[in-house]
């Protein structure tokens, strides 16, 4: 794949007149004249770096402060409801540079089995220092030889006694906490570290490089908008030292968040982020609102990206749409290469598929994905069961990325459905049927009487999925004698925890 352009030429991003940016491609939206007067020329005013701001962004430069002010005070800016920075120190920044270098040199082919020596060494060093490790890893166990027999950790461990998973000698001064609810709604407090949060950036760079994209970050550009479309979510703007003070904003497309109905479109137009990250529902909402942008890539997270919507987004924004697999507890795990395969991203994360007893399943077989390692000093992962399922394969991929691949990733334990004759139907089979459609999320349930209901949230602004065609395809899978209904619900997931719904559920009691 050829190299993509590196984004718009750097230009000062003072609050300047709204709508002054060049027209957008591929289909520029109408951009009415801003009814509000232009903001004062803040670009030339001395930036205000309060003690609070310095605490949030310890490495903030003057140029970064100007950009941040522009993002915060633009006349079309959303109603910010949160303040947040990267909290990075110069030591962290050096560590991120080191991590970037390691990623460039240490992402190499892996074998099934225990982690490599570097990771085993880390675990060995943690063994005496983490309460859970002390209690649960048998003192005589050889980490390499006995790996498969060692216990796993889970979300339940983290929810019940997170302090047992944190090293005894943790310097809690740098502790930050991210709460996560997943699809269960049960909140978990995840101990995090500013370095680990900013280490997402070199990982994003690796994924983008696979598409020939090498963004130039700096205080003259906005690096990314994280786009949400929810009733309520935190919104903030900041700059990121790990991207040389490039701007960043977490935005919510809910109309109530913006000064006018046109503000969101104008805000995107004004700041032209190099990257857009968000879940498929939020990107679908961007399509519906006809928000134009010229990003280098869209990075889709949180829930599965259906290929129909992916194609629509790629066409609308003229850039690759990367599927990204990341968990609050683990951080980024994998990205989809240009061939469409999910590759494990970090070299310092060991991913295996395990069975109910914690034993690794053979390569190519389906198991629950478990992660070991990572770089969060407050939460060293040990065979952490993610609650997601997939198949690990280690053969080389045609894309050239040597890291292992995760096939058939599903966000839940495998659910087996049944035909009238009692034959099993895998959720993966239903997923394959859904892939071509432009869908944001779906919920499929088989009731105790074997009847099936599929509820779809179609991508707004796109042709609705053909319910009759879907019904027909499902009938082919399930065979005769089973009632199947398909309906569309534009609000599916909007009121669920974190906007996610359970994709597959069986009331027949035949879970694998």
């Amino acid at each position, binding site marked *: 794949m050829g190299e993509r352009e590196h984004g718009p030429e750097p230009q000062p991003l003072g609050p300047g007149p709204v709508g002054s940016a060049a027209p957008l491609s591929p289909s520029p939206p109408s951009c009415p004249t801003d009814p509000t007067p232009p903001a004062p020329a803040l670009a030339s005013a001395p930036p205000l770096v309060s003690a609070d701001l310095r605490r*949030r962004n310890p490495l903030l430069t003057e140029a970064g402060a100007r950009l941040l002010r522009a993002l915060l005070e633009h006349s079309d800016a959303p109603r910010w409801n949160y*303040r*947040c*920075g*990267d909290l990075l120190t110069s030591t962290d920044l050096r*560590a991120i540079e080191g991590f970037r270098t390691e990623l460039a040199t240490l992402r190499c082919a892996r074998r099934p089995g225990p982690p490599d*020596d*570097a990771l*085993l*060494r*880390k675990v*060995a*060093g*943690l*063994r*005496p*220092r983490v*309460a859970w490790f*002390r*209690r649960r890893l048998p*003192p005589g166990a*050889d980490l*390499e030889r006995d790996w498969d027999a060692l216990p796993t950790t889970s979300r339940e461990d983290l929810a019940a006694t*997170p*302090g047992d998973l*944190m090293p*005894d000698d*943790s310097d*809690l001064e740098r*502790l*930050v*906490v*991210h*709460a*996560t609810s997943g699809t269960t709604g049960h909140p978990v*407090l995840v101990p*995090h570290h*500013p370095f680990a*949060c*900013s280490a*997402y*950036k070199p990982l*994003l760079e690796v994924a983008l490089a696979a598409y020939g994209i090498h963004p130039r970050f700096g205080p003259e550009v906005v690096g*990314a908008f*994280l786009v949400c479309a929810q009733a309520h979510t935190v919104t*903030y703007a*900041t700059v*990121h030292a790990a991207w040389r003070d490039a701007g*960043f904003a*977490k935005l919510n497309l809910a109309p109530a968040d913006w000064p006018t109905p046109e503000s969101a479109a104008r805000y995107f137009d004004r700041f032209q982020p190099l990257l857009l*990250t968000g*879940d498929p529902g939020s990107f679908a909402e961007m399509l519906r609102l006809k928000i134009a942008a010229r990003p280098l890539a869209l*990075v889709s*997270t*949180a829930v599965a990206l259906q290929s129909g919507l992916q194609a629509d987004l790629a066409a609308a924004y003229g850039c690759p749409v990367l599927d*990204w697999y*990341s*968990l*609050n507890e683990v951080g*980024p795990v994998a990205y989809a290469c240009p061939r469409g395969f999910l590759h494990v991203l970090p070299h310092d994360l060991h991913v295996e598929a395990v069975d109910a007893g914690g034993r690794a399943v053979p390569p190519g077989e389906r198991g629950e994905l478990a992660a070991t390692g990572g770089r969060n000093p407050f939460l060293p992962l040990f065979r952490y069961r993610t609650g997601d399922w997939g198949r690990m394969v280690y053969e080389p991929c045609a894309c050239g990325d040597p890291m292992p691949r995760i096939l058939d990733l599903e966000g839940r334990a495998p659910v087996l459905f049944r035909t009238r004759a009692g034959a099993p139907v895998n959720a993966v089979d239903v997923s394959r049927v859904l892939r071509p459609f432009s869908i944001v999320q779906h919920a499929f349930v088989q009731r105790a009487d074997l009847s099936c209901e599929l509820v779809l949230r179609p991508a707004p602004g796109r042709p609705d999925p053909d319910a009759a065609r879907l019904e027909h395809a499902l009938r082919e899978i399930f065979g005769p004698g089973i009632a199947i209904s398909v309906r569309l619900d534009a609000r599916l997931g909007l009121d669920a925890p974190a906007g996610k719904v359970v994709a597959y559920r069986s009331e027949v009691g035949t879970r694998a």
Partner: protein
Amino acid sequence: MAEPPRVAAPLAELLRWLAEAPTPLSPGMAAGPPGGRANVRAVVADLYETLVLRTADAAFLRACEISDDGPLERNRQRWILAAAHLLWHPAVRGRSFPDAAVRKLFVQELPALAAVAPADGLLTDAERREELIRRSLRALGLLLPGESAEAAEDRLAQVDSVERHRLVATAAEKEKRARVLREEELRRRAAEEAASKDTRE
């Protein structure tokens, strides 16, 4: 079952060998200025080739290298250098050992030891020197002259820093108190600002 081979040097000789090794035991060697810092990778590579009779692979050598400049890592480097010096004793390096034995010592035993025991103990405490000797010999499958396998295990248990740390740390009240403190801090920090992340999850 055949008895493990014996190292042709008594404990006293190995203790003296360690105590008289100023270079690897000096705090400055693994933590000092770049010009004076030992090249741990090269030391381990040489040793591995001598003991295993083939070249060490990159993954193993990377696991022995320093991964950050924190005190834990610097401490681990000093333990590695001390172990390398010990295994360079003529009574040891004249033999060959399986890759897995050498690997386990450097990848598992020494990191665990370094996590709980300052390498300064090698300078001041004969028990730490004995612990290093006994751990290393056990990993390599060697016995001291005139000592049975059971006696060797018993004696190692008496000087075992890692096990002692485990027993002290898991004393129910102490561990519980530490956990409660960490979890209180978690809840308190949950109400404070987080750090910015690029993606949703």
